[in-house]
């Protein structure tokens, strides 16, 4: 059971890493819009060749 003395601190480190990553993601605006991404995945915009872009 003494392996826990190593594994639990390791788990806490991972936890801290996860929290840091999430804070960074929130800070960079990835969670500002929680509605669009739900439909974004079903809309691929790669079906047409680019020459149709008349602009």
């Amino acid at each position: 059971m003494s392996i826990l003395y190593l594994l639990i601190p390791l788990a806490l480190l991972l936890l801290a890493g996860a929290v840091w990553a999430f804070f960074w993601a929130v800070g960079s605006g990835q969670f500002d819009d929680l509605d669009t991404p739900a439909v974004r995945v079903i809309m691929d915009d790669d079906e047409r060749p680019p020459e149709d872009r008349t602009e």
Partner: protein
Amino acid sequence: MARAESCFHCALPVPANCDIRVEIGGRQRPVCCPGCQAVATLIRDAGLENYYESRDTPDPGAVRPADEAGEWQVFDREDMLDAFATRDGDQVEATVYVGGMYCAACSWLIDAALRQLPGILGADINPVTHRLRVTWNSSATGLGRILATLADLGYKPQPLAPDSTERPERAEQRSALKRLLVASLGMMQVMMFAVALYSGEFQGIDGDMERFLRLVSFLVTTPVVFYSARPFFAGAIRGLRARRPGMDVPVSVAIGSAYVASVYATFTNGPAVWYDSVTMFVFFLTVARYLEMRARHRSIDRSAALASLLPNTATRLAADGRQQVPVAQLAAGDIALIRPGESFPADGSITTGRTSVDESMLTGESKPQPKAAGNAVMAGSVNIDGIVEMRVDVTGTDTTLGTIGRLSERARYTRPAFVLLADRVASYIVVAILAIAAVVAVSWYLVDPDRAFVVTLSVLVVTCPCALALATPTAFAAAGSRLADLHLLVTSGNAIETLSRATHVVFDKTGTLTRGMPEVVRTVTHDPGFTERECLQIAAALEVASTHPIARAFTRHESDIAATGLEVRVGAGVEGVIDGRHWQLGNAAFVTDARTRMPDDDGTHVFLGTDGRVVATFTVADTLREDAGETLAMLRRMGYETSLVSGDGEAPVARAAASLGIGDAHFGCTPDDKLDYIHALQERGDVVVMVGDGINDAPVLAGADASIAPSHAASLAQSSADILVLGDSLHPVVTLMLGARRTMRIVRQNLAWAIIYNLSAVPLAAAGFVPPWLAAIGMSTSSLVVVLNALRLSRIR
């Protein structure tokens, strides 16, 4: 004869004489007008047809493009950029309010279309607030081009001045999300350690390992208490300072005392720790607050709502000619030119020209008002058919429109305050729990000091008000998402509770009970050579040229006749040639001869004439919605009183009230009158629900206990309402009232369950019969029961 074909782009019915098609997805799709054709073609050519597959079906006409070509280049000018954007070298950033967005596919479309422009560095669109923050390279493109792109897609873009662009919502949402994540991760970790500690209690645990697990729990719980739970402490301190302690006080006491006691036990090897209860309590409360915040943020941004009623720019007439200027730069004394279809940028009076003005949104008056030189006009009203010049008297927030905005702001502020039932109950319960725990701790300390801590812990865990904290927010969240499926958008947290207590439903007339647009209700022919249908078709062919709202009553009718040489006579009507015959369509002075009998019914009369005689008389009126009668009857059967308050004249109000069976009808009301009426009802003890759509309804929507606005309502009215009804029907009001009652029934069941559970568990725990691990299972089960019960709301119909 009526082919029920609707426009592929905007879902309006396609007129019979219109045969425009666009090929999309390999099929020819019908569209209703050249504007929709242009938008659909643009979307297809840009390779963005997926928009049509992913979007929700729009309200008919909601995305129909406005005809405002050529207005946008002006935004490329330097002084415009100074007014609407912030610059950093070549890099320019602006915020644009995008009107006409209605689902998430819209934000995808806008994003994808903008990224095809050269020089766009970033486009960040928020589908909830309808705000687009766009960054671009000023050497490659300009603001005018960006706005034109949005307008080409059929939206109504409106650049916002930089000072109004900062919204606190974003920061609030971000920090709430971070707090929620810390609380949830912390809760999961601590639960894991708690399971080890509980099972250790059961089958023995090494003393060092126990101390280690407690220390680790302490490390994880500390940020949860000091970071995630901080708003509760801050709220409690604020409440105590203001001498009005709320729910935050007992919550803070519970969190704080459990945490301090646990820390003490951790470092003195005390008999038990409470970390799991602390983190779980914080987590559930944070979830509840987060859900409530999301609902609150769904409401519409007020500053943008007010501004969106005004045009972006105005044409100023100066000594050196015409000049397009941002509306904010208009000052009293300026002369401005207003074309048909534009809205007036400020309050003032007409100096040259005559026209008719649609003031229905501001006053509730359903007929267009004729205006000539010397007449006053209001900012936000729409110029219908003539080119006029106006002298600006008052601008910005001092206009009638601005005053109504302020009035609604104040009405919302002075709305009768009340505390949520659940909050009231929960705060008493929490205080009771703490008191009981203290009594238990002291008595056990006197009887058996060794077991005092364990028993007190059990009492606290078994009575953890998690189920209580969850009872209301889960029910509201489940009801909110179900109502959204039923096209009812709840934007205010306590609206549902208020609705369930409502006694009186007050309706606005124009645009709410009625369609808000004129329809031909009667046709009388005076010439046996023409049938009613022919007369209507001729009228429809003539009115094609007119932008007058009355014209829409005719152009909705199918017509395969084409007229030539159409000419619009401002304030009179239209004339044109059909099959070599000259026709006039318009008011009595324009068309009638001495022999014409004026019809005796209400509404606007339109005459069709040729060769100096009258062929037909049409009665055009704003008709009641089809489901208005049924909806009101159902509301009355459900026991609600119904009233009608309108700014419209006596005759149309009385007629509407009579046909709907409303006894209590008020006409000619100003926004102030409406508010006074509601306040009088509230003094009587009524809980008032207001249903309205006009700008003049905004104050009363804000002042009523709960308010409902249809999605076509003026944005100021929408921002004042608690619930938005998507779609063009009144029936959802009934669904909503039933849903609210049902939601509160579930909330009461949940609260009752939580209270009964706590009351029955406390004596057992206090007597020492419940070990902590069993208490934890009991607590989780009771929370689960509450959540599952709330989920039953997803079956509201």
